[in-house]
């Protein structure tokens, strides 16, 4: 998504690391109550814009505190949602600070009003696989600065040359004499010293922690029920609520008879909003029972008859016309006209829900003079802003208590449900916890957009591509979510994964036709723009290879002259998967290759297709180069996770509309892969010293084309639409 920006930013940072120690990045001083406090400005999305806008100002959003008893705490703006950030960040700090990982405690920062004044800066966000990529350098820099100052404090105490001292396991040691002082004892003195202009970062080959499989720090509370997610918030006097929103997007509440609901034991109140009804009770069981007893009439509004087919027909029509040009290299028209062979294809991807395991929920206490919100969110600043907007209170009167997230996947980048919860809570005396049923969670999600893409390619006499045209048609999430980044009719997220494939394609054009579906809100979904583009590009490249009668791996190799890192992961995945070895009839291998989120990845899928058309994914072999691997343990886990998420969607999932309503409602018709359906997953990591890439998402978008390409190899049937339609695979 916003990542090329961040890539450029971190590339510049790496080149001129010393710049980071200037006033705009880091400040040091005494901590309240004693000890050393480093405040630093970690980059947020849109950092480059904000840095120039805020030249000379210093708005810290990360803090390292070293107490006099030697305790070290790191406060970061990111949230933990299962991706391991609360372990990886302390690793980076501990590495440079020369302390044990166990000495660093990670805490999550509260929302800071100062950060959100500027629309461009105002995204305190965890998403887009950006965390490690954006913070790798700054966290190390902060750690190295603290280390240098602690050494200077010790050297000053002993009246010796700092160069004769070293830092080790939370202490400074004077090497010639063996004298030793702990960081806690040095913290006050270090706080009075000037901040060094240049500090030396460790050579990656000397890393002791980074690159080792560190244990997660947040997990012990997750095996005994003690971890507190948003849905577990406990507030004295709290009531419980659940709701029904108009099943048709854009519809309104016409009338409701609540007499039966109010007769249910432990039901206190029925709240009627413009387009929703909520039942307030002493517990969720009563609230659900009360909701079921309501007699509701909806005014279904303009989308009452809408179906998915209407939306797709509309997209098929608007995508006939040329879109906004995202990339235009060479002369595609001429290349296509002169090609020996031409290919045309239409690819379609469905609306998708997120179905985080923790259903959407939010606890709110609205008072005359203030508002408290208990929630798990990827965007804590936006949560505060929306609660302020709905209550009419100034933002500083809104306190957001962020919690662990029972899954994010993009859903908790949105604050629609926080706005809704505050609307309900405004009508309730005292705090109220509002929990969406799974049905409401699925039917009032904000969905990964439907995409309708038109592809054209021309091949030369050898079957190699000479022209490539990709016209993307779908909703722009960026236009709604980050309007300043929507420029001249296109956004970089919707075309991400389409404009910069690893292949050498001399004549290439990518267009974007924006189409906003009526009656269905769209949002980011794990692997964002590439979640659709990689399926399209990697399937179509496979079509080209087939048209050229060439092996899909060989064909890709021939196009990778300028991308050695892509070639390396492709070769590694092919080798480990036994590419080329004969498989029984009805089985096939398929490959995908990509460079998105700063990580190169290839996947090889092995699939069996039965006579009834059912497809069994047996094995996924994944090779990746994510630059420096911070925590190999987390990388393997994130790849497995991303593959399962992608496979669930590829095999089973789509959100469809009939009569303006989402047809799916729970895990029986919006499925998640289960343990008995798991393929074998192998993850192979290429050792690399390049800047770190993102890991939360690449595995999700790489998966579907590997599977459908394998199905093609097994059956000869090319699937250009997800989810996989097994009726097309019957033999």
């Amino acid at each position, binding site marked *: 998504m916003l990542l090329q920006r961040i890539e450029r930013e971190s590339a510049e940072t790496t080149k001129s690391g010393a710049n980071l120690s200037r006033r705009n990045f880091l400040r040091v001083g005494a901590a309240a109550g004693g000890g050393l406090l480093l405040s630093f400005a970690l980059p947020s999305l849109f950092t480059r814009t904000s840095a120039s806008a805020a030249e000379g100002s210093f708005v810290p959003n990360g803090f390292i505190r070293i107490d006099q008893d030697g305790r070290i705490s790191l406060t970061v703006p990111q949230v933990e*949602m*299962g991706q391991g950030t609360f372990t990886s960040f302390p690793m980076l700090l501990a590495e440079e600070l020369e302390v044990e990982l166990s000495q660093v405690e990670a805490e999550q920062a509260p929302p800071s009003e100062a950060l959100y004044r500027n629309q461009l800066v105002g995204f305190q966000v965890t998403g887009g696989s950006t965390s490690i990529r954006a913070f790798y350098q700054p966290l190390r820099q902060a750690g190295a600065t603290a280390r240098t100052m602690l050494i200077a404090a010790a050297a000053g105490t002993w009246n010796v040359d700092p160069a004769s001292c070293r830092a080790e396991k939370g202490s400074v040691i004077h090497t010639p004499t063996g004298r030793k002082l702990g960081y806690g004892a040095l913290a006050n003195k270090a706080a009075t010293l000037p901040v060094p202009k240049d500090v030396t970062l460790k050579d990656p080959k000397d890393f002791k922690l980074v690159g*080792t*499989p560190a*244990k997660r720090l*947040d*997990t012990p509370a*997750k*095996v*005994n*029920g*003690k*971890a*507190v*997610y948003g*849905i*577990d918030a*406990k507030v004295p006097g709290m009531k*419980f609520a659940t709701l029904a929103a108009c099943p048709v997007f854009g519809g309104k509440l016409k009338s409701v008879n609540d007499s039966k609901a109010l007769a*249910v*034991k*432990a039901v206190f109140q029925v709240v009627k909003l413009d387009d929703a009804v909520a039942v307030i009770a*002493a*517990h*969720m*069981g*009563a609230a*659900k*029972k009360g909701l079921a007893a309501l007699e509701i009439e909806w005014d279904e509004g303009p989308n009452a008859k809408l179906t998915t087919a209407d939306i797709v027909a509309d997209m098929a029509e608007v995508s006939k016309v040329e879109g906004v040009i995202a990339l235009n290299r060479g002369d595609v028209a001429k290349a296509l006209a002169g090609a020996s062979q031409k290919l045309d294809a239409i690819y379609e991807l469905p609306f998708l829900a997120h*179905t*985080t*395991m*923790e*259903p959407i929920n939010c606890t709110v206490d609205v008072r005359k003079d203030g508002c408290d919100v208990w929630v798990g969110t990827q965007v804590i600043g936006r949560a505060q802003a929306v609660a302020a907007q709905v209550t009419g209170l100034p933002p500083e009167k809104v306190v957001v208590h962020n919690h*662990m*997230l*029972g*899954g*994010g*996947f993009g859903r908790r980048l949105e604050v629609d449900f926080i706005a809704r919860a505050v609307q309900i809570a405004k009508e309730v005396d005292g705090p109220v916890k509002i*929990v969406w049923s*799974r049905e409401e969670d699925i039917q009032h999600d904000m969905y990964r957009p439907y995409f309708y893409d038109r592809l054209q390619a021309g091949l030369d006499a050898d079957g190699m591509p000479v022209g490539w045209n990709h016209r993307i048609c779908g909703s722009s999430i960026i236009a709604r979510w980050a309007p300043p980044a929507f420029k001249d009719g296109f956004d970089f997220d919707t075309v991400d994964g389409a404009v910069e494939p690893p292949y050498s394609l001399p004549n290439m054009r990518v267009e974007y036709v924006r189409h906003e579906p009526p009656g269905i809100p769209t949002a980011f979904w794990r692997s964002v723009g590439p979640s659709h583009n990689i399926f399209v590009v990697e399937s179509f490249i496979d079509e080209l290879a087939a048209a050229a009668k060439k092996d899909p791996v060989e064909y890709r190799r021939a196009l990778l002259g300028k991308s050695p890192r892509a070639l390396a992961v492709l070769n590694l995945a092919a080798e480990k998967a036994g590419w080329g070895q004969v498989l029984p009839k009805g089985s096939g291998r398929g490959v995908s290759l990509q460079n998105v989120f700063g990580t190169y990845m290839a996947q090889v899928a092995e699939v069996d297709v039965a006579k009834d058309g059912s497809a069994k994914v047996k094995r996924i072999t994944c090779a990746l180069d994510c630059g420096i691997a911070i925590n190999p*343990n987390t990388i*393997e*886990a994130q790849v*497995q*996770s*991303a593959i*399962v*998420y992608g496979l669930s969607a590829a095999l089973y999932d789509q959100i469809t509309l009939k009569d303006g309503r989402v047809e799916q409602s*729970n*895990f*029986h018709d919006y499925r*998640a*892969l*289960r*343990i*008995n359906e*798991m393929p074998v*997953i192998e993850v192979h990591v290429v050792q690399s010293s390049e800047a770190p890439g993102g890991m939360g998402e690449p595995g999700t978008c790489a998966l579907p084309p590997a599977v459908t390409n394998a199905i093609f190899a097994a059956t000869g049937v090319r699937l250009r639409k997800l989810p996989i339609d097994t009726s097309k695979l019957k033999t």
Partner: protein
Amino acid sequence: MPFTIKVNNVQYDVDVDGDIPLLWVLRDVLGMTGTKFGCGMALCGACTVHMNGTPIRSCITPIQSVGDASVTTIEAIGETPAGQKIQKAWLDLEVIQCGYCQSGQIMSASALLASNPNPSDSDIDAAMSGNICRCGTYVRIREAIKQAAQGSPASPQGI
């Protein structure tokens, strides 16, 4: 109507309608939020607890059906030998990501291990396929159940 239920060896009196699911009594009335809500239809397993040692989905279990059965939740599963082994293996092998479904996973796995000290892959499939994990931690769940069964000590670094 008042009910007396036994949860983690403690008796509780609760006054709710008889058709209210055990899940909400545990979470909202008794404040034991370790047991999770995921689907409300016994499709995902997040709400799994033990009733007399048998795993059940508390989201579809009416309180009136509990009677004098002994209910065990994630908060107390560590006091059973199987639960303790499972929790340890879960941490040793770094199974957990977001962790939300893991209460249910651990309850299902503990019940499996208590009744079958040496589960095969198909035993694991049968016992665990009712528990969904959207983070996709299944590879490690399987490994952790096997490790817990063997009782083999984990290496200090886990994996």
